[in-house]
């Protein structure tokens, strides 16, 4: 067993009223790492987070935090003895306490001068010094978010859990807060598990991504890895738009309606390959095998739907300045190795 894992889940299972929510889930989180649990709503990612925090008891399996078993095998460490920081989806700020009071609350029992110093450090780190005596209802959404973060970090936990913390913020503020949270986490050197259903957010902040579906982790890896080499069509779709194309592989290449394409991993036989729209380039060509059927303009880029003479429809994502008219004949090329779907 790796002793230096901050969190280790082994075959954890949890059901609610007979409905299984987390199945046989195993997970390892290394120090100073931000792991994103990514999945659509109801996939069990929040329950996994609550199992780590000790807010739920697993039905089976075990949980280790910093090498100490906290759950499973007859062991149970209550959440109040786990020393974990947590940021809740609704922030769970205490409305009757000031900003400083909220942060100080997390230091309960410690010496007063030490508490004052820590609270001040956190206020400074999160840019809330001027808001120290405000009450939560007097703060903006972003400020409330920072208080929740400061409160979760003030006791210097090794591990911080985030339960979709940005879901109540508007898109602009969300991007800003992401940067801030990442920077602060790096500064304090804590490991974190971050739950979200937003793949853009996940790619942006994650050191590692774990993709959850129906209570299981289906794929773990670096953000670029899981995007380029998804384990299934479902995962591929969840992470972004994708074209699925049949082909015949022979080693490093696959023969498809787009021609011979290089494969990311050698394989042979009849397979299906996944082609991301942004890896497709369009060239105007009277002798091309594709016809432009639809264009959708997004500003800096656009998606173009084309139809092969065989009836197959594909989607390409190209820069906004290229102009293609409906009905134009084009040829396609793919400028990256494609991933083969196995299984």
């Amino acid at each position, binding site marked *: 067993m790796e002793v230096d894992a901050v969190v280790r889940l082994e075959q954890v299972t949890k059901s609610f009223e007979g409905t299984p929510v987390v199945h046989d889930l195993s997970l390892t989180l290394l120090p100073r790492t931000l792991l994103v649990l990514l999945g659509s709503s109801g996939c069990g990612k929040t329950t996994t987070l609550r199992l780590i925090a000790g807010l739920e008891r697993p039905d089976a399996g075990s949980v280790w935090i910093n090498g100490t078993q906290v759950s499973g095998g007859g062991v149970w460490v209550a959440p109040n003895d786990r020393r974990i920081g947590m940021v809740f989806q609704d922030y769970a700020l205490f409305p009757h306490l000031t900003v400083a009071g909220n942060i100080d609350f997390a230091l309960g029992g410690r010496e007063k001068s030490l508490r004052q110093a820590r609270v001040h450090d956190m206020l400074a780190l999160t840019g809330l010094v001027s808001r120290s005596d405000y009450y939560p209802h007097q703060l903006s959404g972003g400020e409330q978010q920072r208080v929740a973060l400061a409160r979760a970090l003030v*006791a210097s936990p090794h591990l911080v859990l985030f339960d979709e913390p940005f879901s109540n913020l508007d898109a602009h503020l969300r991007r800003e807060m992401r940067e801030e949270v990442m920077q602060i986490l790096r500064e304090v050197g804590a490991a974190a598990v971050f739950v979200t259903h937003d793949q853009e957010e996940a790619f942006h902040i994650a050191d590692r991504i774990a993709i959850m579906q129906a209570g299981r982790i289906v794929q773990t890896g670096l953000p670029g890895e899981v995007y380029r080499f998804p384990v299934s069509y479902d995962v591929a779709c969840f992470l972004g738009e994708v074209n699925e194309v049949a082909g015949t592989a022979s080693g490093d290449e696959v023969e498809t309606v787009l021609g011979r394409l290089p494969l990311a991993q050698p394989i042979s036989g009849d397979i299906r390959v996944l082609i991301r729209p942004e890896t497709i380039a369009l060239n105007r060509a009277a002798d091309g095998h594709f016809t432009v059927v639809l264009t959708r303009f997004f500003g800096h880029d656009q998606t173009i739907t084309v139809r092969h003479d065989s009836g197959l429809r594909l989607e390409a994502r190209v820069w906004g300045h290229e102009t293609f008219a409906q009905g134009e004949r084009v040829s396609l090329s793919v400028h990256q190795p494609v991933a083969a779907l196995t299984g």
Partner: protein
Amino acid sequence: MGVMLRRSFPPGITSLSILAAGILALALLPLGVLVVHAVVSDWPRWENNGLTGLLPTLSNTLVLVVGVATGTLVLGTLLAWLVTHFEFPMRRWFDRLLFLPLAVPGFIMGFVYVALFEYAGPVQTTLRSWFGWERGDYFFPDIATPFGLILVLTLVLYPYVYLLARAAFLEQASSTYEAAYTMGYSRLQATFRLGLPLALPQILTGLLLVVFETITDYGTVSYFSYPTLSERIIVSWNSSFDPTTAVQLSLLMMGIALFLLAVESRMRARARFYQSARAGRRLNRVELRGAGRWLAVGFCALILLAAFVLPVSQLVIWAISEIRQPTVGVLQETFLAYTANSFVLAAVAAGLILVLAMLLAYGSRAAASQRSWIRRLTSVGYAVPGAVVAVGVLVVVNPIDAPITDFFTDHLSWNGAAYLLTGTTLALMYGYLVRFLGVGYKSAESSLEQISPSIDSAAKLSGAGAWRIIWRIHAPLVRTGLAVGMILVFVDVMKELPATLLLRPFGMDTLALRTYFLSVEGWHRTAAIPALTIVLIGLLPVLILMRVGEPSFGSRRGRSSRTGDEVV
């Protein structure tokens, strides 16, 4: 009226607003006149007569308020904490059944308790016969003491604190507690450091209702011969023929009431932003085990028994024996007559008040700031004792009456017009209006508030006129709210003692008056029949409360705020 509504509706400020202002002025007139009267009255007289005599009354009132407030605070909060934080056998039943004592007016509970626990009462008699004791052989606390009075009022008033504390605990998000757990706090620590402080504004709101009820109480304190400010007003006006003292005391009571109302509105405002964090999942209840489990069951059962089952059972036993064998010398044939009086008075008052309250609500519909002022102004009548309202009404009505009477006797040589207003049901209705308009307005306002102005706009765009909007859209939507308001006013009028006592036409009896007089004279068995009738009718609003008492998941805030209003 129809024209007025049509012309000023909905952007209207004009006719309807003026009508609303008129209603408001009518309802506040007696209290305003009372203030003027008191201020210009003969103050030294009060000093000679009253001030020294007033001190014991003041300290009595204070002792009673502190005692009852402490009792209800502890009892109400403890019960609410038990049923919301823990799981134990029959919890679901206790959760609702603990509302029941709201149906028992203090003066009824008072006479039942005294009759049960006094020396000659069944409890002590039974103890003596079991153990062969004689007088002085044993210690038994005397029930007819201030302590007994505090006990009785605590048992009937704790539901106010219970109701609001319970709603507050139910609204708390589990994430608040979970955040505390992750910070190293245990559940009990989280309850004390977060749960209680967060529920405090609502608990204090409930406590203020208890204080209002305690200082305005007349029947219970006079039954226990415990002079308080409220009781003194009636005695001064009715028996000592000292209207100046009555008016001056009324001013004092109004001052206290206004102060408490201001505190209450602060508390409600604070409670609102304490709840502002939208609650996600609810707090899960901890299963109690071992001794704690049975302690919780036993405690809830004991309170329910003492505050409801015991007094009601005793009333039933008395009523049955009275029906089988009527007490000689006490007229019971009139039961139907005064019951009819009570029903007619309560029904007419409820109808009148809700109509006026609805007009008031429509008149102030456009402006939220106006509404909060109207809410405050109309609640003054409810916050002061019924006796103050009655004195105010009499002070207004008397000077109008005299010239009318003179006019008829001098110019028309007709004596039948004497006291056309004073001592008639008209003055009584006016008294009820002043006292209970606030209750009606809150129902009217909150039911109208549920109709968003954009609904009106949508209806107008589809071509509906003002009457069609009111009839086809508003009426069905406000119906339930108005019915609840009517029931609340109906029951309040039925229970009202001091205002009825001072304003009733000579010789007119009601259920409450009859219960009170019979119990004061010691005819417990006979008093049990009207008393039981009042309790049964009083159960009606409690049953409604029990149905809406559970803040449901979706409409948590809406429902619970309605729960709070219904208490007032």
